[in-house]
């Protein structure tokens, strides 16, 4: 039995269904990230776990106990809000100890708990300040301190890093990851940033329109997306999704990509998914991540199925650590990720290596993965 279990959770506002049957589980000490575009219901789902919004159907259990009818303060949870939600009229110490004060914890114990948390987060020198006198990163720490001091069964984070600037966001991300590793707490974390999701999570739930599209480990989500939405949403730069047809010469299958003004590329497939033979001579969506499309010298040595094809390079984007090359296949711009020092010129025709073991195929009608 998992530590956090969400069973068939539904939420309606009048006739509008916001959450359409969510089933998610998380083991003790796990880090679950709910990720999706805005309006997908991820924050609503977090609020229902916190008890700030009621649910229409289903059950939420923490450590085997159903909590969906309990008041937020009785659920043994702590929450970090997007705006931090620090009480402006109280000092940092007052903010951290407010919850304990409400639960009638004696003053001495409160002081001990404040000192302990202040030490962990290194905010000891800020305790007597008001939130308005803190910087963004310091407020973020205090908000985490307020959550940590409860020592709850479950931590809830609602887009905690989205108000920080880019550099601080990376620092705080590492900080959260370290905190999770050292304290071993169970965390549910909402974000729209797929990099945060990939780096922090032990489990990711990708959501769209109130439904979980895919639930799994970051590697599963990244390498084996179940549909086009997940494939497109996760990863930066996004996966190249190109319309193609499946051709066959003799026994093996091949994927055929159309090109403007030149004959199509045909890439032979070895060990293609069995479902693909049903799509012979039919249209499919061919998905390949930019790092699986590179210059032949930079291609992975031990990949079993690499095919090389000449491509017309339209644009070069040197990003420092890598060079991105844009070509055109099947009427779409396709991004390839090359080594930083790859000798490549825009407007030339250059061979590119397709790592087909990493390629995925989707049915254009259902948008589902062909397995």
């Amino acid at each position, binding site marked *: 039995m998992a530590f956090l279990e969400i069973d068939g959770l539904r939420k309606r506002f009048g006739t509008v269904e916001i959450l359409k049957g969510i089933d998610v589980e998380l083991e003790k000490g796990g880090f679950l990230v709910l990720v999706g575009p805005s309006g997908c219901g991820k924050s609503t789902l977090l*609020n229902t776990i*916190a008890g*700030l919004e009621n649910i229409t159907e289903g059950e939420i259990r923490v450590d085997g106990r159903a909590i969906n009818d309990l008041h937020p303060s009785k659920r043994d949870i702590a929450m970090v*809000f997007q705006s931090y*939600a620090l*009480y402006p*009229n109280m000092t940092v110490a007052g903010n951290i100890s407010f*919850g304990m004060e409400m639960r009638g914890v004696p003053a001495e114990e409160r002081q001990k708990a404040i000192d302990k948390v202040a030490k962990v987060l290194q905010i000891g020198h800020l305790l007597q300040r008001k939130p308005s006198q803190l910087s963004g990163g310091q407020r973020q720490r205090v908000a985490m301190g307020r959550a940590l001091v409860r020592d709850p069964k479950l931590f809830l984070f609602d887009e905690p890093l989205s108000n920080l600037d880019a550099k601080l966001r990376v620092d705080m991300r590492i900080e959260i990851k370290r905190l999770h590793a050292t304290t071993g707490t169970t965390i549910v974390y909402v974000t729209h940033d797929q990099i945060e999701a990939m780096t922090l999570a032990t489990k990711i739930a990708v959501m769209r329109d109130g439904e979980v599209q895919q639930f799994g480990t970051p590697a599963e989500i990244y390498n084996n997306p179940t549909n086009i939405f997940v494939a497109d949403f996760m990863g930066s730069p996004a996966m190249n999704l190109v319309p193609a047809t499946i051709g066959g010469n003799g026994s093996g299958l091949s994927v055929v990509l159309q090109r403007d003004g030149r004959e199509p590329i045909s890439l032979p497939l070895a060990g293609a998914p069995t479902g693909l033979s049903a799509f012979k001579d039919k249209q499919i969506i061919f998905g390949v991540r930019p790092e699986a499309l590179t210059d032949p010298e930079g291609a992975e040595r031990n990949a079993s199925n690499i095919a090389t094809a000449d491509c017309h390079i339209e644009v070069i984007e040197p990003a420092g650590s890598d060079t991105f090359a844009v070509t055109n296949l099947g009427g779409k711009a396709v991004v390839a990720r090359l080594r930083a020092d790859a000798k490549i010129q825009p407007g030339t025709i250059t061979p590119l290596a397709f790592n087909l073991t990493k390629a995925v195929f989707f049915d254009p009608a259902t948008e589902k993965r062909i397995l």
Partner: protein
Amino acid sequence: MSAVTSPAREASTGISARTVNRIVIYGLLALFALFYLMPLFVMLVTSFKTMDEIQNGNMLALPQSPTLEPWFKAWGETCVGLTCAGIKGYFWNSIKMVVPAVLISTLLGALNGYVLTKWRFRGHTLVFGLMLFACFIPFQSVLLPMATILGSLGRFGVTLQNSTGFSFGLGNPTVNLVFVHVVYGLGFTTLFFRNYYEAFPTELIKAAQVDGASFFQIFRRIMLPNSMPIFVVTVIYQFTNIWNDFLFASAYAGTGDAMPMTVALNNVVNTSTGVVEYNVNMAAAMIAALPTLLVYVVAGRYFVRGLMAGAVKG
């Protein structure tokens, strides 16, 4: 050459035109300010003059031999109706009526605003709309119904007095006035607080809920300490309105010992016997105006700031 001089000449006429505009604008403003301050000046000057000087001298002239006598007389000796003990008793009547009325209506308004923004229920817009409607009702139209209600409350008070020995203040004119002002102030105070709390971050309330604070704990510990600007605005607004109210005061406490300041002042000025003591009347009027002035001076900067905050966010 002409090409060089003509723009210069234009510039110089431009400057002079601007100067003329300035003079006209500031002149007009000064004139209006003078016009507006004139009655206050006359009142203040007259209140320090002797009766001889008033009868023989110029209304705008400064007092030849300034005296505080009229102020003392107005405070402690002048006749209000048939009793001649000055207006001091009525001044305290007003204070006793205004302070509870302002505090109760402001606190209830804050509570209403809190519920209407942070604990929304089905039909909250309708409730707010109806409360807003109270702001637009002409008070003359509610005089009679309210008199009937106060009458029944008074009779209920007598019944309570007979059965329990204590009337709970029902039927007391001061309590009646407090009640009336609280009821009719609620529309405005609710409007002020609702608009202020509309922009108040809801995540703070959610955080407090997770922290285990109750409905009233959130109100007292989170909402009220962060409502200082709108609190001051509401207090000033309510204090001025209730202190200056004459209609309800004369209708429900127009006679007797509980008469508020405004009614008493009217009775001082409207005496039909003897010489009209303009200096005493003016001093009494100044005394009647002092508390509202004081409130503005003490809290005025919050008033402007609070109104601005509402304007930007609302």
